[in-house]
């Protein structure tokens, strides 16, 4: 065995790595099944803060969504913004999109096209979401928005003056938002929002960022930053939580729409795996076959690929890292065996 490992052609290692990366991608792509993510408290806090935005005021929350990244970081950060917009749309929050990066507007357009227009076509521009576009000035923009937002953003990205946009009524500064949700790749980014918005005006702030930035922002959690997503791992954890929440919410909506008592629908929606069996029970007798099919689809159907990007990437990452650990261990087994034999490494 040791001899075999000593003389191992490195092409076997290359093959092993190729399989570790390609097989999970193919399996996940075909089945839609990803590894269960155990969300960390940071991701759970991010989700919880977005979920409870606006509750204290008993109305729809006004959420400022700042997408401060560019195509180079989109691989790591797009899954976060897709899930954020997904959660806000499902929850019924009003979304105000801005960006402090010049190429950020493309990220905003992507999120609106891929999430809102595709899965929430009933949401109306100007009433449920608005795109205010990019403003130059980095942290100066945040400082000015803290006092008077309309000085910075006089129109939306289409050129419509803010006074003609229904959801801009009553929004004059950062303090009129219930939550700031920010996804960033560098400067200006999380740190600037923490310093000039969250700290100054005590507005709840949650932030998703690249892996490189995350260590610098951990000290701000949980006082100034209420939730933090770091790198693709954070994106995968948040995606997992949001997908579970969306599935549960949709199930509950369908169950209540079919006439079920909300007190019963809630706990049933928490167990999607039970739904197919439940549809054959007496309790579901009054449902039409189409309604039952919709319910089963909502409970067990595949999650759309747009909301699995982060989790998809964790599969290859897990196996590739495990392979690396195994290779290091095997390499050292050979080394110590050779040493014992008196050979050179």
């Amino acid at each position: 065995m040791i001899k075999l490992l000593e003389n191992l052609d490195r092409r076997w290692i290359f093959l092993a790595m190729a399989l570790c990366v390609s097989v999970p991608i193919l399996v996940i792509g075909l089945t839609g099944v990803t590894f269960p993510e155990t969300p960390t408290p940071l991701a759970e806090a991010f989700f919880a803060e977005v979920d409870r935005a606006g509750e204290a005021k008993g109305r729809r929350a006004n959420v400022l969504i700042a997408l401060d990244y560019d195509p180079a970081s989109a691989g790591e950060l797009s899954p976060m913004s897709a899930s954020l917009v997904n959660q806000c749309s499902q929850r019924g929050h009003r979304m105000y999109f801005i960006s402090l990066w010049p190429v950020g507007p493309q990220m905003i357009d992507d999120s609106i096209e891929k999430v809102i227009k595709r899965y929430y076509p009933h949401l109306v521009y100007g009433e449920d979401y608005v795109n205010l576009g990019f403003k130059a000035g980095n942290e100066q923009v945040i400082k000015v928005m803290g006092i008077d937002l309309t000085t910075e953003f006089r129109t939306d990205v289409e050129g419509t003056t803010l006074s003609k946009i229904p959801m801009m009524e009553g929004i004059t500064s950062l303090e009129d938002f219930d939550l700031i949700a920010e996804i960033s790749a560098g400067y200006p980014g999380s740190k600037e929002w923490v310093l000039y918005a969250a700290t100054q005006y005590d507005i709840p702030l949650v932030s998703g960022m690249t892996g490189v930035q995350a260590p610098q922002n951990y000290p701000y959690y949980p006082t100034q930053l209420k939730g933090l997503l770091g790198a693709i791992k954070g994106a995968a954890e948040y995606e997992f939580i949001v997908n579970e929440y969306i599935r549960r919410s949709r199930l509950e909506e369908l169950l209540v729409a079919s006439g079920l008592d909300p007190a019963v629908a809630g706990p049933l929606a928490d167990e999607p795996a039970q739904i197919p069996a439940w549809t054959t029970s007496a309790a579901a007798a009054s449902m039409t076959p189409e309604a039952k099919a919709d319910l089963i689809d909502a409970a067990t159907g595949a999650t759309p690929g747009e909301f699995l990007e982060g989790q998809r990437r964790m599969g290859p990452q897990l196996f590739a890292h495990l392979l690396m650990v195994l290779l290091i261990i095997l390499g050292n087994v050979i080394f110590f065996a050779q040493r014992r034999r008196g050979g050179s490494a």
Partner: protein
Amino acid sequence: MRTSTIQTTLLATALCASAGVQVVLGSSTTSWLAPPESPTNLVANDLPWDGGGTVQIDWTASATPEDQLKGYEILAHELSVTPREETIETDEQADQAAAEQTESVLEGEGIAPEDARRQAELSTGSFAPAPADPSEWTSLGIVPATQTDYQATGLDKAGVYVFKIRAIGLEGEFSAPTAASGEIRPVAAFFNGRKLPLLVTLMLIASAVFAFIVLARRGMPMRIRKIAGLAAVDEAVGRATEMGRSILYINGIQDMDDLQTVAGVTVLGHVAKTAAEYDAKIEVPTARSLVMTAARESVQSSYFSAGRPDAYNPDLIYYVTDEQFGFVAYVSGMMTREKPAACFYMGSFFAESLILAETGNSVGAIQIAGTANPSQLPFFVAACDYTLIGEEFFAASAYLSGQPDQLGSLKGQDVGKILVGIVIIIGVTLATLQAITGSDSLEAAVNYLVNVILGS
């Protein structure tokens, strides 16, 4: 008469009622509609001892109480450009900013700077630039009501500006602006005073280097520790000669404007001289044409000084491609086919470093690497036999030549390190004490160290 009395009474009642309503409305009407008082005594001056583009603006607070104000807005008008020119400038600045941001993100991932710049330009060129507001007065920003000064930065050094300030009430109503300030040119001073700490530091380090060079010339012995990678050059070249195979020398993938490439060409001269003496073939594919020219000069001189001018073959030093991964694809293929016995990687490398080192290892070559890119050092350390880490690479020229002048400069560098060590200890001590005690004076000292001394 009775009727007129009733009418008078009704009229009086109506008047009183409306007066009462007016009184009731009056105070809130005043706060809703009446704008705040304007600030006064606006003074704008060019900031002295700077690099230009900064104006210091001061004013006296508005008579309206602070708690009834949201803040002050600073307005500027550049007298020397038209609104159209301003729009073009803003668009260009936005494009430039977008490209710089994308470029820095790509470089962080290991893409070579040239490619990062090209990719950034291509990706940002397709986006519509930020719409500029071509109004005559531009808002520079809003400051809280407690502030009565502002430093306007990023102005055009050749421009002429006037400024105005206006107060903003709680409901967003603006006061009348102050009268415009006088015309200000935010010119640069003769000397940029903010860089004084940097100049002082540079002088200290330069003086140390000079001093040790002088001492070395006077005969003071300079002991330099052994650098294993450089001591192994002879071993590597000898091995190539014995095996009858070539030496491969890669001078990094950057151009001659990168100091690492210059250091690489320096080491190439020494390696080429040793190769000439051992009669080994040295091949130098380059990623830049200028590097090819400089490398040819260096190798030719080395062969001449080794007494082997006939053995010099300029075709062994050739240009491949500027493109990072195209270059490494060529070199990997060449290494696999020709199986050099010794590989030297001396210069600036990015993501391709591990590909080169692993391929070299697979063909059984002895590998010596040197780079000052911290992100690539771990790959070289893991995959190569010897690695020159950072400053060891820059010391190579001095080490290999053994000249007293150059060895003296290495000693001078050590003085710089002592200086850095002292500043670190002072800074860490101050910051730790400040965090424990919460003292304001310590905080000011830390801020001075960070913003003025280290920020220069």
